[in-house]
């Protein structure tokens, strides 16, 4: 886990979106009152290669905005659960994080990045404060609630569910009823929350991808530069199933 430098001593404060549910009257005011941790500086955004409001005018931002719009159009601007996987290891986390960050740029929407990439997690990097629990802990321990694993990130209006500490038997965990409930729960709780799931590579983790594709609304397949042959691409598309696949994103990395 990466240590971020900061002048302020960082609290390991869990932010529960559930906590503020009762008080809000409108989604906008609710979002405005979302408790936030310290936000990333432009340099931190750049180091993480994540788009931010200061990127206005960059090609990157334009690409992700375009992607966001296409996906939202797919569900008629209703919220969705989108799985982002890649045809070869690498490249999918970048797309997932940036997609989530781009959605969160809209002040009337929030995004939640679920890091289901048990084998090379990335989401922890987005947390200014190190997380203690994560998705795997939630799936393992029934006493853990959703509010325990959702963390505020350094990006405004974006929440993160990190992988957690309990990574053994990932396939089984993902294939559990609790996982299914988790997805239903997070999607249904807020109508303006868009959920992006960062999944492991479709090339290496067949079972996970098949299950997650079932659980999510649709899948975005990332094709990283110089890593995928046509055969591998077609194999990945077959695993996901063309009915789940929203489309392909080419990533120059």
């Amino acid at each position, binding site marked *: 886990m990466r240590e971020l430098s900061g002048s302020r001593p960082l609290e390991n404060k869990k932010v529960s979106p559930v906590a503020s549910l009762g008080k809000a009257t409108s989604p906008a005011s609710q979002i405005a009152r979302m408790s936030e941790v310290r936000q990333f500086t432009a340099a931190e955004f750049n180091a993480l290669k994540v788009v931010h409001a200061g990127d206005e005018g960059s090609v990157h931002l334009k690409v992700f905005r375009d992607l966001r719009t296409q996906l939202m159009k797919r569900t008629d601007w209703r919220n969705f659960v989108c799985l982002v996987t890649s045809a070869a290891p690498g490249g999918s986390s970048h797309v997932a994080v940036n997609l989530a960050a781009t959605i969160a740029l809209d002040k009337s929407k929030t995004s939640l990045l679920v890091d289901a990439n048990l084998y090379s997690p990335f989401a922890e990097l987005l947390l200014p404060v190190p997380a203690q629990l994560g998705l795997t802990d939630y799936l393992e321990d029934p006493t853990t609630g959703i509010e325990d694993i959702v963390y505020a990130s350094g990006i405004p209006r974006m929440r993160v569910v990190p992988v957690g500490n309990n990574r053994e038997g990932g396939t089984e965990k993902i294939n559990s009823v609790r996982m299914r409930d988790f997805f239903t729960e997070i999607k249904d709780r807020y109508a303006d929350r868009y959920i992006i799931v960062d999944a492991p590579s479709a090339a290496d983790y067949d079972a996970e991808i098949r299950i997650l594709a079932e659980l999510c609304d649709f899948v975005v397949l990332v*094709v990283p530069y110089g890593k995928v042959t046509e055969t591998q691409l077609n194999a990945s598309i077959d695993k996901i199933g*063309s009915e789940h696949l929203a489309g392909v*994103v080419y990533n120059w990395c």
Partner: protein
Amino acid sequence: MDAIQYVKDIVTALKRELIRYRAAVAALFTVLFLTALYLSLHWPKYYVSEAAITKDVTNVIEPLLRGTAEVADVNQNETMQDLIFSRRLMDRVLLRIKPEVAQMSPDQVELEIIEFRRNMAVGYDPANRNITILSFTSPTADRAYETLKAVVDVFIEDRMAEKQKVTYEAHNFISDQVIKYKRRLENAEEKLKDFKSRNVDASEQAVKDRIAQLANEIENLRIAIQESEEKIRTTRSQLDIESQNVGQRARHRTLTERRRLLTEQLDQLRLVYQDSYPDIVALKSQIFEIDQAIDEYKTEYSFGAGGQQSELPLYEELRKQLSTAEVDLKTQKRRYDSLQELLEKEYKLAERVAANQAELTDLTRDYDVTRKVYEEMLARKENANITLALNDEGQGESYKVLEPPTYPLQPAGVPAILIYIAAPFLAIAAPVGIAAIFVVIDPRLRSVALLSQKLPEGIPLLGVVPHRGTPLAARLLRKDIILLTLLAVILIVIYGYTLYKFQSLLLPL
């Protein structure tokens, strides 16, 4: 597929790969650059001497024997290349430029010849196939020039000698032929003479004439015989008639004689007696009777009174004529027989003469042909003599040195300075080329254009995320760049120093 997009993608990918493997690229560049620099300093200098020889395609024996006998073109199949690279000539050239070759072992000589063959080149002027360009390549100008000069000299000498030899051979050949034909001609002449002496009379025309003459004579003789026979027959019949006449005349004469006697008696009696005397009367009646008989004859045979004298000579004449005719006939017949015999003989002769004539024609033809060839050969022999004389005086060469071997003043080939200048380009071309080949051949998708083409039906390409260099990556890159810049500076210094230090080697003077 969008071709422009594809090319753009490939260029981007190329850049990416070069940056990704920058360490390897820098290493390869450095190695190649230094190698090229080293090569430029040790670039072999060589000199090429050139000469041009033209080939006169005609040869000596062909015009000499044109029309009489077909002969193979002497040098048709031997190209100059074969000649120059022939072991015979090369040995001589080697001996001329390196006298020590004579003491060398066969192995060493073989090596020398291989070396010589490698440096010697024989080509044709593209504009004129008859002009042959010889060139010799050597590390030194002197050796290039001297070797090529030796090659050209030896070649020309050899060709001259060869031509001389060929001409002599042709001349000798023709002389031999002339002698042979002369002998044959004499032989034919002898035969003809012999034949003629054996068959002096044997002129066909003469025999023919004689046969005609004989036939003519025989014909005439046959007619003469017929005539004689006719004459004999006529004479005989006349003789018959004449002999009859002679009897009658004798009777007539007897009667006339009796009448004359009686008349005499009467006349005497009348002198004595009267007419009425019985004797006289009797006599008168007798005379009367005789007159009657004479009249009868006269009327019956009517010979004139004048013919009385010639009656006997006619008969005699006729008889003479008959006997003459008979003698003639006999003579004629004998002559006829002998003529027939002669004709037979002539016919036989004619047959023999015809056979002789055929033989004579044969002999004459043989003689004529031989004489004709002999005369021609004689004429050609004269030509050969002239050609020989021409060759002896060195005229009518079939190979000429158009351009004598040149002394090379400048080294040939790619100058070292070019290698020196090209070194950095060559060095960068290799990694870029390898990367380009890798990018194009590698089946992994490196192009958006290619990806959108390969995507299955119904799956959209939602977006293309461009490469984003992070500040951290930039920092790393900067470290690399410092190293690379350092390397570049070192290489540039080496580059400049090389030119300064080895100016004489690199720059042609």
